[in-house]
């Protein structure tokens, strides 16, 4: 039995009373080393990462709690051509992590789709940038489109083989309290089925409105984007034999928000259209046949025409004939030939024929939308002040959406969460190796140090991109278009950007910047590039001055 030198007798009564209080508050409390609240991809990945490590598997007792029904996800299956509407692009870095913990093999690869190219263009000026995975030294794909349910099912299947991790689902967390006692006040999680769990470390993987974060007293900094993202699964004709296969992601930056087309299979793709809330509501409620035409038009028509179409939609044009009429009128008045790839309602192109020159610059025409996949959700920028709880909130840590939410325009949300999970699992294993208390502040600091700044960099970059592309002011449009077209010419810069975004698993971020530095050096030596750049800048400044002159002095 353990033998301790007792404190002096004056404290004995208090000691007994303290013991009584502690036993009362932790009645039926089960001791756990780690309690993970939240059964989304981040929480499940953390449990799987710890279960995959022999040291952690044998010394840690882990419990995961999820309010929803996970058995449905474990048995999830869909027919081959039907896809769920929540998909994420899993970067190479994340894939490498999932491979390391043995999850990637459980993912159904037939339902994932590699992305080889990404076409991004400006909705106002048409300036384009094309990312191609072939410039990265060692990989041919930039990311993989995977359904979130596919990943969750893989994680659940792996966890069901691991006895040391207990997954409790369909049980909600009623409250989280701090244990009353002297020095060792561990968090107590009260579940709706009456069980209480006592946690050495409480992990909040419970999404944006995280109860763990509010228990820990961690405030967060952020704002709402006044944007809703509409998602849907689109059906379209397969790409013809003269075109690249459906492995290209398309994104057009409209002033209301970007619209993205993410390929899932030869004839199916996913839509993420971030737009203003009133437009999103109208899109959500639109009758069949309307949304497809709007999507096709949104990728093709110039911005002023789109404004007219939005107005028609908001004024109450509900039927697909009315919308069709409007789009046809717009295409005629913009002078779009019915044989060009930019025609949608008036398009006379047949599916199997020779495509026009610029067909690869645009996604295929959407023919229908999979039943029941239209949904929308609000977008926010949110970053917790700290990832580790202190004081009354100690022994808590946040991962995934509980710690940060980001605009989906760069497809980084899930990847940041998986990066967090990777760092936290390594931090916990390191603490175990040194006999540390995994819930102590000292043991968790390396995790925060590794992830906070990295996440902040990505999130603020994405935020700035969103802000830059939301503007229609001419100087801003000109600057971003020139910038985009300049970078489009610089292959090594693009390679560096792709690697920084996680497209290469082997190289760290630093070597991405090495390439960037080399490219700047080569730029200094390349006369033609500099002439082109100066030419562009000169032409742009002239244009700007001319417009400014017109505005100030009236038409000449």
């Amino acid at each position: 039995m353990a033998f301790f030198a007792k404190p002096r007798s004056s404290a004995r009564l208090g000691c007994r009373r303290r013991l009584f209080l502690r036993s009362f508050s932790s009645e039926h409390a089960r001791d756990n080393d780690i309690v993970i609240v939240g059964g989304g991809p981040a929480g499940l990945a953390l449990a799987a990462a710890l279960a995959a490590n022999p040291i952690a598997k044998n010394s840690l007792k882990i419990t995961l709690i999820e309010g929803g029904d996970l058995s449905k996800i474990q048995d999830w299956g869909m027919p081959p051509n039907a896809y769920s509407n929540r998909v994420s692009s899993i970067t190479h870095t994340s894939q490498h992590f999932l491979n390391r913990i043995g999850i990637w093999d459980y993912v159904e690869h037939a339902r994932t789709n590699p992305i080889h190219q990404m076409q991004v263009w400006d909705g106002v000026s048409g300036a384009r940038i094309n990312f191609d995975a072939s410039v990265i030294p060692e990989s041919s794909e930039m990311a993989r489109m995977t359904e979130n349910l596919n990943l969750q099912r893989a994680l659940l299947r792996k966890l069901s083989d691991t006895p040391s991790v207990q997954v409790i689902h369909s049980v909600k967390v009623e409250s989280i309290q701090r244990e009353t006692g002297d020095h060792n006040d561990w968090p107590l999680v009260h579940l709706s089925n009456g069980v209480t769990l006592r946690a050495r470390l409480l992990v909040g993987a419970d999404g944006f409105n995280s109860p763990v974060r509010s228990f820990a007293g961690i405030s967060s900094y952020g704002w709402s984007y006044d944007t809703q993202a509409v998602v849907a699964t689109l059906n379209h004709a397969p790409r013809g034999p003269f075109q690249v296969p459906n492995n290209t992601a398309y994104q057009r930056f409209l002033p209301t928000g970007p619209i993205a087309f993410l390929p899932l299979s030869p004839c199916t793709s996913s839509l993420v259209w971030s737009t203003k809330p009133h437009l999103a509501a109208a899109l959500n409620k639109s009758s069949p046949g309307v949304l497809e035409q709007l999507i096709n038009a949104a990728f093709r028509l110039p911005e002023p025409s789109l404004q007219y179409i939005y107005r028609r939609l908001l004024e109450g044009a509900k039927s697909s004939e009315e919308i069709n009429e409007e789009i046809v009128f717009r295409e005629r008045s913009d002078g779009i030939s019915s044989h060009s790839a930019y025609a949608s309602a008036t398009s006379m192109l047949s599916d199997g024929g020779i495509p026009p020159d610029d067909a690869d610059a645009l996604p295929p025409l959407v023919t229908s939308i999979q039943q029941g996949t239209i949904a929308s959700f609000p977008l926010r920028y949110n970053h917790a002040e700290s990832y580790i709880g202190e004081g009354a909130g100690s022994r808590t840590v946040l991962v995934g959406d509980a710690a940060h939410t980001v605009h989906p325009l760069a497809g980084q949300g899930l990847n940041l969460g998986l990066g967090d999970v990777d760092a936290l699992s390594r931090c916990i294993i390191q603490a175990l190796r040194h006999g540390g208390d995994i819930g102590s502040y000292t043991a968790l600091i390396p995790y925060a140090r590794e992830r906070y700044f990295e996440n902040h960099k990505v999130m603020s970059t994405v935020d700035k991109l969103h802000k830059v592309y939301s503007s229609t002011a001419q100087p801003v449009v000109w600057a971003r278009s020139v910038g985009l077209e300049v970078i489009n010419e610089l292959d090594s810069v693009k390679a560096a950007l792709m690697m920084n975004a996680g497209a290469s698993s082997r190289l760290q971020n630093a070597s991405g910047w090495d390439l960037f530095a080399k490219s700047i050096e080569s730029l200094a030596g390349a006369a033609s590039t500099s002439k082109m750049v100066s030419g562009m800048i000169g032409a742009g400044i002239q244009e700007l001055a001319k417009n400014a002159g017109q505005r100030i002095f009236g038409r000449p």
Partner: protein
Amino acid sequence: MIDVYAHIRVRVTNGIGGPALCRTRQLAASCRQESDSRISAAATSSTVNATEIAHFSRLSSLWWNEQGEFSLLHRMNPVRVRYIREKILEATCEDQGEDARRELESKCAVLTGMDVLDVGCGGGLLSESLARLGARTIGIDASESNIGIASTHASGDPQLSSSGNSLEYRHTSAEQLVKEPKRFDVVCSMEVIEHVDNPVAFLSACAQLVKPGGHLFLSTIARTPLSYFITILAGEYVLRKVAVGTHTYSKFVNPSELISFFQTYRSSPSSSSNPTDFGHIGSDVSPRPWITRTYAHGLPTRLEADVRGIVYIPWSGEWKLMPRSSTPWGAVECNYLFWVRRPLDS
């Protein structure tokens, strides 16, 4: 040869110095020196300094506040445990071969089956980590309130309070513990020797508590201008990271002093193992000193002892264990770890 004894002579004011200080003379010396409380000095051994004990007892309740007074100590703990782990693994490789080492490394608990003593455990920072690594740990401290805090903290952790006799705290001192027969595989004394009155007696007591072939780990601060600047000027007065009076410059111990102590220290053969069992070459030959050779730059060889600096990186807020090659270049100017191994045949 640096004289550790001269260092002691400075403190023993009545001039009865010399290597063979007997207990009563030490007692008289310390009583004459300390004008305040005589209780601890009379009851426990003389190397315990009453004002130091009072200072740390006052701070007892702050031990486990990781962002408070002891935050630097909390941050140093993983580095110390990592060092202990490294040395245990190296010793396993030397004694039992590469396979045994690999097997031990794959387990989390590298100290399984070992008896470990933490001298001056304070609030139990190191003792808890050692117990989690599988050792049968005893933590001792001269301050009773520290022992109380340590026990309370450990009792709240199910991992430490449930598994048998693996973590125990006692209010005693190294000198008292020597009188008991128990000896330890690993003795640690982290950040203690710069707070005791008589480092020679303290070191002898710690060394006597080590089993043959066992390890002694110390961590302390060197007595250099840089260490004064960092730990006292910057740490106590300017940045106020620790309370004023935590460290006393004259009590800092240089690594060269520790090395020279162990170059002459021999374990008395009357401790646990019996040399006559092994077919003696000469039964009156006393066992070898713990450190038999040093390199030209004064540092000991790898198998016998090791001195490694640890540096605090302020901007990342963590301690870094400096590599072995940086020791001759001055990495041990401030905080450092010292490891020495008791010869197997003593």
